[in-house]
């Protein structure tokens, strides 16, 4: 008995001490191999898949048919290339991205916000390829969001990712309900838009459904549109790209937030937006339960199918008639792991997506968005009167006005979940003022950028 009682704690102590010694001898993550910045700094330049059989390892977002359609067509044209595809939801990809890129790098991967991945040296620098393939001659705004400087700031620096196409956001509307409230054409000014919302409400039609429940802050869509109507799209981009001195807490942005608050208080949004998720918003809109949603052209193909002929699209109108228009517009980002085995072939694929006629057809008909590539490249014909045609036409307007913005939700890795979402939900519930909202977001932003 005595033997047992003395040795048990002793043995436990020894075991624990040994374990502690084995785990605690080095700081976590300090092995230099994964964080070596030079591993991705020397860009290769020949993008080719060769002729020998090759299998590309890909990691795609589930629920969106575009990448798979493209890979199928690619294999048809280049039979030596086969695909090993893994799919996950975007939220899962966001959480997995660093680990997957470090441990088991895919040749091609759907990417979340790239700056932290670049800082950790996980993505391939594509500058060399971009030079030889002529990507540098494309409209600079297409690639700007995927350029990352050495300190993780986006907007310029080497290119670390590529788009399959680029999206355009704005306001979708139900044509039948629009006629019902006497809306004959899209609003030309913000004031006209306000009048339409008022009319819809008075006619007993829910003006706007917007997802803003759970972990989503979909009010960021109308808010950023309002910010660009009151202010300058460039200033918002500077904030998103973390330019020094940039702030979101500016007088025009305050006006925009107050305007959004006015919409909320006037009952222009469905009363339950704080429990609406994205799918609920879409199903209600498709069922004809409301007039407007703020969304992007990734839904164009879907809406043309489900609400054929009954859905329209317009860009957020400017504050003054004839003013410049702006929209959130972002490439559907794909990148290549810095240690990927078949980078040359993956780049060849990305270039093919932007330049091959068949691929550009697929980008529009399946993806619904504008293909990447030179400004004068081939454009597939789309059905007149369809919402796809409307969103593609809107892209031209934004190009002219230089009004393409990244999303304010993309400014830092945590700003959406940590700041925009809870703050906008509070605003929707009348528990936050516009002044305090912008101040709170700016404070979080500064502490996140400093880190």
């Amino acid at each position, binding site marked *: 008995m005595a*033997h047992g009682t003395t*040795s048990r704690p002793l043995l436990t102590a020894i*075991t*624990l001490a040994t*374990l*502690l010694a084995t*785990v*605690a001898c080095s*700081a*976590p*993550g*300090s092995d230099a191999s*994964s*964080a070596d910045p030079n591993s991705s700094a020397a860009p290769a330049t020949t993008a080719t898949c060769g002729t020998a059989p090759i299998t590309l390892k890909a990691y795609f977002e589930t629920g969106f048919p575009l990448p798979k359609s493209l890979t199928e067509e690619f294999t048809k044209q280049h039979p030596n290339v086969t695909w090993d595809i893994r799919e996950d939801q975007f939220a899962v990809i*966001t*959480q997995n991205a*660093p*680990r997957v890129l*470090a441990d088991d790098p895919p040749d091609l991967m759907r990417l979340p916000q790239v700056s*932290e991945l670049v*800082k*950790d040296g*996980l993505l391939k620098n594509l500058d060399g390829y971009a030079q030889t393939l002529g990507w540098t001659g494309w409209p600079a705004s297409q690639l700007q969001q995927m350029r990352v400087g050495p300190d993780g700031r986006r907007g310029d620096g080497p290119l670390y990712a590529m788009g399959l196409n680029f999206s355009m956001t704005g306001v979708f509307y139900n044509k039948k309900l629009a006629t019902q409230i006497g809306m004959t054409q899209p609003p030309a000014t913000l004031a006209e838009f306000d009048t339409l919302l008022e009319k819809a409400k008075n006619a007993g039609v829910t003006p706007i459904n917007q997802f803003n*429940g*759970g*972990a989503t802050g979909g009010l960021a869509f109308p808010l950023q549109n309002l910010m660009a109507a009151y202010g300058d799209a460039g200033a918002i981009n500077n904030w998103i790209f973390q330019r020094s001195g940039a702030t979101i807490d500016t007088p025009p942005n305050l006006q925009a937030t107050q305007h959004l608050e006015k919409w909320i208080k006037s009952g222009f949004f469905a*009363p*339950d*937006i*704080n*429990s*609406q998720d994205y799918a609920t918003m879409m199903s209600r809109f498709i069922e004809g339960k409301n007039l407007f949603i703020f969304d992007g052209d990734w839904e164009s193909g879907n809406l043309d199918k489900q609400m054929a002929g009954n859905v329209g699209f317009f860009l957020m109108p400017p504050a003054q008639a004839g003013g410049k228009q702006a929209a959130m517009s972002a490439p559907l980002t794909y990148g290549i792991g810095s240690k990927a085995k078949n980078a040359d072939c993956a780049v060849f694929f990305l270039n093919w997506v932007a330049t091959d006629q068949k691929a550009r057809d697929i980008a529009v008909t399946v993806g619904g968005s504008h293909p990447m590539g030179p400004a004068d490249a081939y454009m597939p014909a789309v059905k007149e009167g369809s919402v796809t045609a409307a969103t593609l036409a809107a892209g031209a307007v934004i190009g002219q006005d230089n009004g393409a913005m990244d999303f304010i939700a993309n400014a830092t*890795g*945590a700003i959406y*979940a*940590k700041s925009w*979402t*809870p*703050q906008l*939900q*509070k605003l*929707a*519930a009348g*528990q*936050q003022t516009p002044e305090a909202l912008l101040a709170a977001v700016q404070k979080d932003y500064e502490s996140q950028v400093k*880190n």
Partner: protein
Amino acid sequence: MSAPVTERRADRARRSRAIWLGWLFAAPAVIMYATFVLRPLLLTVQYSLYDWNGIGASTWVGLDNYRRLLTDEDLSASILHAFELIIFFSGVPVILGLFVAATIRDIAQSRLAVVARTVLFLPQVIPLVAAGIMWSWLLSTTGTANELLSAVGLGDLTRAWLGDFGTALPAVGVIGAWVLVGLCTLLLLAGMSKIDPSLYEAARLDGAGPVREFLSITLPSLRQEIGVCVTVTVIAALASFDIVYIATQGGPGNATMVPGLEIYYLAFSEREVGMASALAVALIVLVLACVLPIQRLTRDGSR
């Protein structure tokens, strides 16, 4: 003289061999436990002292993460929410469970008792994720809860229960209570079946009514079972994750943020592995601080 000495030595040798043999048999379990429980636990403690994004290099920050835990309002609010959930996860199921178990015991012979037991225990069989999804439908603006309210003329009360700042946390609590009532009822019923029936007979002879019987016999005899119920449900409340993740994801505006969810967001969305680990360690300490007194309280005096 020498005979007892050698005998003792042989005895000691035999005993030490037995001890080593014992360790040999325990080895598979010990190794598994050390690798998958103790090692991660110690690593978590170690990570909590660093600023680390999970991939790159880490910086030693000492107790800074713990300091932030006390000063960051969002983080301390999540801990308060967990305590609020204890009312729903522990209070409601244990009290309701006692009541239901006593009722079922009274009708123990009838078929109704079997049905009631099964129905009440069903939520335990349903995966929590499925329960969460089902309840988020029931509690939505167009869900059954609001339809019932409208039907009885209380249309003014209808709201998006999980999307309203005032009702989101209680609504999540109701889901938890629904899940845990069955478990408590079953545990308490099992405890009741062990009570000597002659005690009730004696009480009845002394003129005790059902309430007196319950307070004087049933409740004291169930001390240990109630202890188990409270322990399990308090842990479920403090470490809640799945129900909240499915029903509200912490929204609206952090109104239902709980430590479990916050740890997950910190570690996998915000990539602050150090801070997440610190909160996890704090949660372990908190759970132990709540559960150990409960254990002591219900164990003492039971004999």
